[in-house]
């Protein structure tokens, strides 16, 4: 397990660096929450502005002191209070959005992986065939189309013009979250369009590498041996091909899942989905330092954890990396 240990050391280092960057980034942005308010068009006179600044006095502490407070807060998980939603704690704000984003982006990513990987396997198996020649480049093309294009087009055609899908929120305004079929249906109804947008853009990212990987593997002797053994095609395709080809995709999946908490900012913003992407976007617009910091922090933690998970998973899935090699 030396490998895992070494990775852990790296992750800790990366974490420290990321923490420092997270601290610097928001502070490097011009303006403060008050000017952000003014930038939003609010008309306040000089005295009111001065008084407001006093509310958020903690911002004026010396930088090293701020850093120390921030650094301690990471471990105590007291991430401060939002200025925009003053005095709501950052953890509460992120907590509200976290679940939604996890649901939205997580579902989309897993779907994209499931479909992408399976279609990639099929495309590779029947490479050069009709499906492969159309699906593989198409998925890449879809991947090269910005989410915002899909978002806008879908929002306005299906949401505004045809009124088929809701155009904002995670569930109908006024409904109370509960574990009933009606509510779940409502949530799904609200999520379908954003999930589709994220899904379609991610699809190619899983399909094409899976396909290429699989094609490379199909030249391997053990695949031929599988065939020579007189096993059924499906068995060779899955047990011999896919089992091996999927390994790099698993890393890609973990990376993608690591980015999940970042939310698909554009899609969330376009569909007014109450996830972390929206929260971060607004925090940046409103210079809500504490929220930006908190969000970057959990994104980093997630990213690192999933990277680590990918490492562990890889070791688990690929027996060659396990101990006991000759």
């Amino acid at each position, binding site marked *: 397990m030396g490998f895992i240990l070494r990775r852990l050391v790296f992750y800790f280092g990366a974490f420290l660096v990321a923490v420092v960057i997270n601290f610097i980034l928001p502070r490097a942005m011009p303006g403060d929450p008050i*000017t952000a308010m003014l930038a939003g068009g609010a008309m306040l*006179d000089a005295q009111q502005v001065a008084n407001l600044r006093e509310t958020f006095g903690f911002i004026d502490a010396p930088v090293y002191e701020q850093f120390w407070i921030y650094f301690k807060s990471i471990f105590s998980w007291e991430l401060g209070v939002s*200025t*925009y939603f*003053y005095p709501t704690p950052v953890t509460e704000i992120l907590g509200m959005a976290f679940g939604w984003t996890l649901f939205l982006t997580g579902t989309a990513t897993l779907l994209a992986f499931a479909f992408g990987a399976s279609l990639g396997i099929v495309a590779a198996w029947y490479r050069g065939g009709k499906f492969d020649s159309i699906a593989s480049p198409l998925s890449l093309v879809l991947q090269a189309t910005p989410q915002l294009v899909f978002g806008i087009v879908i929002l306005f055609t299906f949401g505004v013009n045809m009124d088929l899908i809701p*155009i904002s929120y995670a569930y109908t*305004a006024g409904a109370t979250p509960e574990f009933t079929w009606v509510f779940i249906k409502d949530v799904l109804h609200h999520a379908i369009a954003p999930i589709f947008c994220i899904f379609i853009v991610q699809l190619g990212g899983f399909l094409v590498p899976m396909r290429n990987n699989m094609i490379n593997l199909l030249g391997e002797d053990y695949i031929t041996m599988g065939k020579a053994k007189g096993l059924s095609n499906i068995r060779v395709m899955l047990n011999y091909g896919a089992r091996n080809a999927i390994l790099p995709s698993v890393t890609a999946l973990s990376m993608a899942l690591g980015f999940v908490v970042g939310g698909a900012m554009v899609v969330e913003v376009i569909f*007014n989905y109450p996830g972390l992407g929206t929260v971060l976007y607004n925090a940046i617009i409103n210079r809500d330092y504490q929220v930006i910091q908190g969000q970057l922090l959990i994104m980093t933690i997630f990213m690192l954890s999933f990277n680590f998970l990918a490492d562990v998973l890889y070791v688990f899935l690929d027996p060659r990396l396990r101990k006991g090699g000759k």
Partner: protein
Amino acid sequence: ADKATLTLVSEMKPSWVRNFNPFLATSRLATTNQFIYEPLLVVNEIKGGEVVYRLANKHYFSDDLKTVYFELKKDVKWSDGEAFTADDVVYSLGVAAKGGAADVAGISAKIAGVKKVDDYKVAVELKDVNTGIVAEIVRAPIVAEHVFSKVADLTTFTNENPVGTGPFTQVDTFTPQVYVQCRNPNYYENDKLAVDCIRMPQLANNDQLLAAAIKGDLDWTSAFIPDIDRVLVSQNKHYHYWFPAAGSASFMVNFKTPNANNAKAFNDVQFRRAFSMALDRQAIVDIAGYGYWSVNEYPDALGDQFAAWANKDSIAKYGKYSKFNIEGAKKLLKDAGYKDVDGDGFVENPDGTKVEFKILAPNGWSDFINTVQIGVEGLQEVGINASVSTPEFAILTEKVQNADYDAQFTNYFAGPDPFKYYNTAFHSEQMDKARFGGHHNVDKELDALIDSFNKTGDQDEKVAIVHKIQERIGSNQTTMAAMSTNYNYQYNTKRFTGWFNDKNPQARPVVWPDTPERLLHVLNLKPVK
């Protein structure tokens, strides 16, 4: 019977967070003031500052103009049934007078003290004579002493179950996506109030608001909606709008610009006049302003809103410089010695040095940016080498305050009288405090005139002062007026009637929280049967 619920959008946020503490000016929900905390009185800006009494019955100045007295209504109760008395007002204004974060009206510097005269009369002592102070004092929220005096820290209190004197104190539903406030059972004007509840859906931006409006979900909004006739009104016949004039907006050059060559031109009144004449105000209004704005051809940018204060003489003398006139501008430049020497199509200073500058407008303010772009088209046509730059608002503000820029386009405060406009836009003490006085042209006489405005209670005298101010600014062409902006306001007649509009212009119709008149508005609404 069904409750009459009014759906309004008084702010746009990514999520609702329950906070009804009126002392948290940035994070309290927008329906806190007026709808929960009734003000002492409402100053009706559209009607030239006419006072509508609410919690107060009457107010007056002492003879030396250094104390204001408020006499309170006697039959008012808090929503929890406690009586409303002078103690509450003394407590609330006391909080403001103490200054600091809780002084959301920003009046502590002007108030010496607050005294209870009797149970229903309060005296506010001023530090200086200031006849305009009442409009500012009444922006301070009046809260229940028996609730707030028990709060340890006003700046972290979220007041989730508010006790107020206003019409909608009962929080009925609260989710991050929508909340509803319902009638205060003890509201002193419940007989007049026909709206039972107000409902606030969370909307993050104009697009979502528009989409919801088209569906007919909203009753009362104040959003900017481009091409409203085509986009909204034609889609939903119940929607109407009214865009009364708001504050004015002007271009300005920085007299103290660090660029020495530009400074020569900027400090030449003829150059500034040519600048002003190059602005196609009608195009700005029609295109950048979607026709919602109105042309502003006042030499001092005062605007139609304050037409009653206008100085006819100075308009006659300088008005021509505020009218779009390409040929006139060219002639003016030529006569003043600005010529294109190097043949680049743009004029140089009479001494041959280059004039070349950027006009700033904040990033994201697309109507402003479009305005500047149209302005620049005219400027380039007369031979002035101007272009557009769109820094972040914070950067723009900092540059403008520090006189570290060339030119900008900005809007101004409106108000019941022109004082706030003049004071923030031209008083030398304000120049480094905000973007409004960014021309940095210090004129001590003008300062004195502005200072004298609120030293008198006499309206005629005030008008006379304003006339003198206009003459000074107009003759100097300190700023280049472009247009007056408008208040955005849309309403839906499907469920409610009694809306303010151009036929019924009782008060500013906006639902944003900085418009106390919205209280008068909501009291005027009646459900459609």
